[in-house]
């Protein structure tokens, strides 16, 4: 009898038009200096994470600790294309590597892992909850997939403020099955927000392989229903990652809206420190280590460019020193004062 007004006639369509897509990215042509920088950053993450694993074994790091070993090329390649101070970054709980790649001091990251006052979150966040607003690094989120709407919100802010920034939102092959991811995809495309969804497909969501969890294992296609184009990239090659980052940044900065990049990568360690990784064979891990390791890959490239082995050894030594110093700092620096228990709950006083 009564109704809100709105009438529409829908003609059935069997097949929609294809969506606009970017050109296939090319491997980035890095100068020797550029590649050395990327190499150094990847090595820093590798050595940092190895040390974090040791400290965990010594009982100095508690709780959950998710290591990034094996995936270094993704964060390093992507971050190298971002502009600190203009763009924003958000990720899940496997976040140490992303922070290091973004140039955040290893000491304050390690001190957060050991739960010290000098940690980047004053020791209150721990491994999964680290932030550096100054760097445009918005965490560090412990709920699988939550960073995807949050990152879409950061992109909303970039567009709202017209600041030219892009939000790089990382997610894994586990998060990609969360419902909220698709809610975010829908709004991102509806409003053409400047956001890059970087899916780090390391093949295992905790212990469940992609084959056992995903009806569509080609994760770069997960945006198709929302008209978001996707690329699939070798995530074990830092220059391939960088090449994809440039294409994606140009796509989003030019107002074309969101884009998905699936990076095929691999983690050598368990899901977290307490994971014995029984769901895959030693041979599988060993095979990736020997044939696809991102750091070895860059090493070969560098040697081919005329870098000497002793130069690489010198870098390794330098990195080790940085990590040792970070670990020592993280062990020696004090825990938060008991009074910190009640600070930072609310900003205002009421």
């Amino acid at each position, binding site marked *: 009898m009564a109704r809100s007004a709105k009438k529409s006639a829908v003609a059935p369509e069997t097949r929609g038009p294809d969506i606009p897509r970017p050109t296939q990215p090319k491997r980035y042509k890095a100068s020797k200096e550029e590649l050395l920088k990327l190499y150094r950053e990847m090595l820093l993450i590798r050595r940092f994470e190895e040390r974090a694993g040791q400290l965990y074994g010594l009982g100095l790091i508690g709780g959950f600790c998710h290591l990034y070993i094996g995936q270094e090329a993704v964060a390093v390649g992507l971050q190298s294309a971002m502009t600190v101070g203009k763009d924003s970054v958000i990720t899940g709980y496997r976040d140490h590597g992303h922070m290091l790649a973004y140039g955040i001091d290893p000491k304050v990251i390690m001190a957060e892992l050991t739960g010290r006052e000098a940690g980047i979150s004053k020791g209150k966040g721990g491994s999964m909850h680290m932030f550096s607003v100054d760097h445009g690094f918005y965490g560090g989120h412990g709920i699988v997939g939550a960073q995807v709407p949050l990152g879409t919100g950061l992109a909303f802010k970039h567009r709202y403020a017209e600041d030219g920034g892009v939000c790089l939102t990382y997610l894994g092959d586990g998060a990609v099955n969360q419902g909220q991811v698709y809610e975010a995809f829908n709004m991102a495309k509806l409003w053409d927000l400047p956001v890059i969804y970087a899916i780090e497909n390391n093949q295992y969501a905790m212990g469940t392989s992609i084959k056992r969890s995903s009806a569509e294992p080609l994760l770069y296609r997960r945006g198709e229903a929302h008209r978001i184009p996707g690329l699939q990239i070798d995530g074990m090659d830092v220059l391939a990652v960088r090449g994809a980052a440039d294409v994606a940044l140009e796509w989003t900065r030019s107002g074309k809206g969101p884009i998905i990049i699936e990076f095929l990568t691999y983690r050598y360690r368990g899901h977290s420190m307490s994971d014995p990784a029984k769901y895959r064979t030693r041979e599988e891990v060993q095979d990736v280590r020997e044939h696809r390791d991102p750091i070895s890959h860059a090493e070969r490239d560098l040697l081919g460019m005329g870098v000497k082995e002793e130069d690489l050894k010198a870098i390794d030594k330098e990195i080790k020193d940085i990590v040792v110093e970070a670990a020592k700092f993280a062990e020696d620096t004090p825990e938060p004062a008991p009074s910190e228990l009640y600070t930072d709950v609310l900003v205002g006083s*009421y």
Partner: protein
Amino acid sequence: MPVELKMPALSPTMEEGTLAKWLVKEGDDVKSGDILAEIETDKATMEFEAVDEGKIAKILVPEGSEGVKVGQPIAILAGDGEQVSAPAAESVSVEQPKPASAETPSVPEPASQQDEATPTPHVFETAARDLVADVAATHDEPEVPEGTPLVTMTVREALRDAMAEEMRSDERVFVMGEEVAEYQGAYKVTQGLLDEFGPKRVVDTPITEYGFAGVGTGAAMGGLRPIVEFMTFNFAMQAIDHIINSAAKTNYMSGGQMRCPIVFRGPNGSAARVAAQHSQNYGSWYAHVPGLVVIAPYSAADAKGLLKAAIRTDDPVVFLENELLYGQHFDVPQLDDYVLPIGKARIVRPGKDVTIVSYSIGVGVALEAAQELMTQGINAEVIDLRTLRPLDKATVLDSLRRTNRMVVVEEGWPVCSIASEIISIAMTEGFDDLDAPVLRVTDKDVPLPYAANLEKLALIRASDVVEAAKAVTYR
């Protein structure tokens, strides 16, 4: 035979409406599905369609008429060749709208003409009407310096004004949610905001609570000041992960580095006959969470002053409104910038014999009970908590010190409730002031039933508050 077309009930809370426009005139032939008129309800403008074929023989209520009661004949439809005589005179009279109580509920008129071709629409039975009646029957003075001019407005208008004022003064403030822009708000709370601020700042979202709560939270982390409207807080269950895990905990987890200045707002609590999945009070759920500010105002003045404060604060705020209160009129101070402090309860009615603590629509019930208690020689003090977190313990305990007796009234479930918390505070921090155990009057401990009689049994009633107050005063 001619058919009387009657004013339809077009929303759960509609008792009367405005016949905004006739789209037909006398003598027009109409067929089923033709739009006859536009009718404004308390929520929206609706089209009124013909069900039967015929000729518009007479228009009984002219367009522009306000306060047309549900069930009142508005036109007469004649079949082919039928003659129409004028209807009984009393059924065509249009009541003048009463400005201060246009939405004051009335007892529904019984359907008088049972043998008619169309059944008479009538206002349906609901216990929600009793809650609203308690609000309408009591008075609430706003908290202002003496001599401040007052203006009467609804809670709905007060909320809208609060948002509009803050949006005018701060570019970072924007509103997002379902139907907030082009539809003008599912409950009309955001009415007019799109016209003034445009689609950039008044953002319609898809039906995707989890998603847009996350998008809003991310935007707040990035430095904006979002107001996220939930059509009702029942739907925020889909989004509660972002409210708690993302918004509430961020400042602490980041060691004070990352702020999340966001307001999640929308109607909370029972409405009228909408049953279990649309009738829950989430006050204690959110008040449980450190890192959140939780506000649940009663009056229009508090709604305005506290929403402005909520938008300005650097903390995430859950702002619990009440659908039944949206249409209620209150005095609101006419000030350029009326902002109230968060975390301060208010003595709505001073008294000396017993303290009745409540919030949101429960305050109306408490005030109604206090009026009744006065006739029985018990002078009750009524406290409106207004903010549920941080809770103003001092005001509650100070009142207890003076009255030594306490009743908590809460339109919500009893277990692990705000009432439970107040009782705990009274016991641990006011034990020596207690002359009787603190009692609580809450909704019954069941999902809210649909049936009118069961709904009535489930919701709080002023008479129960009177009984509780008499029990704690041993009368």
